[in-house]
């Protein structure tokens, strides 16, 4: 048994103040998580509808033209090219204290990066939203083409638009042949799934096999001004929404992860306090006993 009483008391009070901090952080993260979650939910109908409309325009164009008409003629953002220059857009949080949240997605990106290199002579570059991911990649010698700092304070559509317009214009110019999005998919407040998926070129809408389905899909839309011009606007909009959604999921996931991490930290701190209190009481009792023994010993000595 170590330690003076004073040392133990000091430990207890220091753990107590840590406990206060982790508890507060947990509560703040919880409140923010709620808000972030609501934003994801309210974005969802918009995202789904955009996708539906995109689908029906692409379908009608495909039917209007030759069946063999590939995505390349539909829209430049749908064009498949050999993946020579690849960009990964890594989304992490700016701050830590959230368990493995940043590390997991960074690692997933790192693996995808190595896989791309192993595949062939691809040049891989990175864009990052979030400080942690940028630092991770820089440590491993990744080339950061662009960093988007402080995305998560007051995240809105306009902010995600700066990212998407940067990506789309570079993709148009042929600077990148493919853009991958690495982010934490928000499954629930306690689970986030690191995901790496291709953003550009957009995956082609699934072909309709069934004749009957084809018939219904062929609703006779009037397009104003015309399908091609609509695609010109729809496709970038879809990219924008995808990025915005991924950013929102990252944000919500971060708060979820932070809440979970802080919750277990709070619990650990409580355990530690219990342990130290026990230790403290034992030490105090031992001291009292020792003093009593001394007094009794002294009294005995006087008697004789």
């Amino acid at each position, binding site marked *: 048994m170590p330690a003076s009483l004073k040392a133990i008391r000091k430990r207890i009070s220091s753990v107590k103040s840590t406990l206060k901090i982790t508890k507060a952080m947990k509560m703040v993260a919880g409140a923010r998580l709620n808000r972030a979650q609501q934003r994801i939910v309210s974005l969802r109908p918009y995202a789904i509808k*955009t996708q539906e409309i995109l689908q029906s325009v692409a379908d009608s164009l495909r039917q209007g033209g030759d069946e063999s008409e590939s995505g390349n003629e539909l829209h430049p953002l749908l064009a498949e090219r050999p993946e020579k220059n690849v960009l990964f857009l890594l989304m992490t949080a700016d701050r830590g204290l959230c368990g493995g949240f940043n590390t997991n997605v960074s690692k997933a990106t790192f693996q995808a990066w190595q896989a791309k290199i192993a595949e062939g002579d691809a040049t891989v570059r990175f864009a990052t939203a979030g400080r942690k991911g940028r630092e991770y990649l820089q440590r491993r010698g990744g080339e950061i083409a662009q960093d988007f700092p402080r995305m998560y304070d007051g995240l809105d559509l306009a902010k995600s638009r700066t990212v998407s317009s940067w990506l789309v214009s570079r993709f148009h110019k042929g600077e990148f042949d493919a853009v991958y999005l690495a982010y934490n998919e928000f499954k629930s407040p306690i689970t986030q799934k690191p995901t790496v998926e291709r953003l550009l070129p957009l995956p082609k809408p699934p072909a309709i096999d069934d004749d009957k389905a084809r018939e219904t899909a062929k609703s006779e839309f009037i397009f104003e001004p015309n399908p091609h*011009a609509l695609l010109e606007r729809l496709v970038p909009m879809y990219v924008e929404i995808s990025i915005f959604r991924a950013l929102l999921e990252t944000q919500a996931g971060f708060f979820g992860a932070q809440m979970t991490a802080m919750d277990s930290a709070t619990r650990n701190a409580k355990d530690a306090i219990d342990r130290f209190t026990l230790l403290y009481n034992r030490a105090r009792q031992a001291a009292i006993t020792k003093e009593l023994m001394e007094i009794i010993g002294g009294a005995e000595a006087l008697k004789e």
Partner: protein
Amino acid sequence: MAIELEIVTPRGRALKETVDEVRAPSVNGEFGVLPGHLPLLAALRTGIVTYRSGTSEHRVAVGTGFAEVGPVKDDKGAETGETKVLVLTDEYTDREGIDPVLVRKELAEVQDEIGKLAQQDATQEGAAAEKTKTLITRENWLAAELELYGDPPPAVMRPYEQFGPSPTDETVGSEDEASQGN
């Protein structure tokens, strides 16, 4: 026969209402929808959407986006005979949501900035063009808000709100060129 009007923004569903007539600003000009309208997909510019139920007319402001008109389908995919108008847009507000003083102030700031950008960089390429575009979109939106409020804006909407890719973009196939003139 009626129309189901639904306006959806990235911030959630803004409006869902059963109405008799809808008028919306497409890039080619305003169009009206009555029950039984043919399926239509239109690109919208910033402006005022008007809808009428019975004899009362309501006006709301919307940003750029899309409108889809089509028959309402029930769960089995059969048409119910109703018409549905779905508006997807970046921005939405009704008259109550507008503070004309704030809007005016921001409009002045935005116009200031546009003026500065135009002076700085006459060629308007790259990032500057992108920024100008964003600002003008904002300006149009603010002007639409003022118009809805009934406070006529001194600055008219700029016809800049172009349709299609930015002018610097050359990857567009020639077959689309004719449609870019909006």
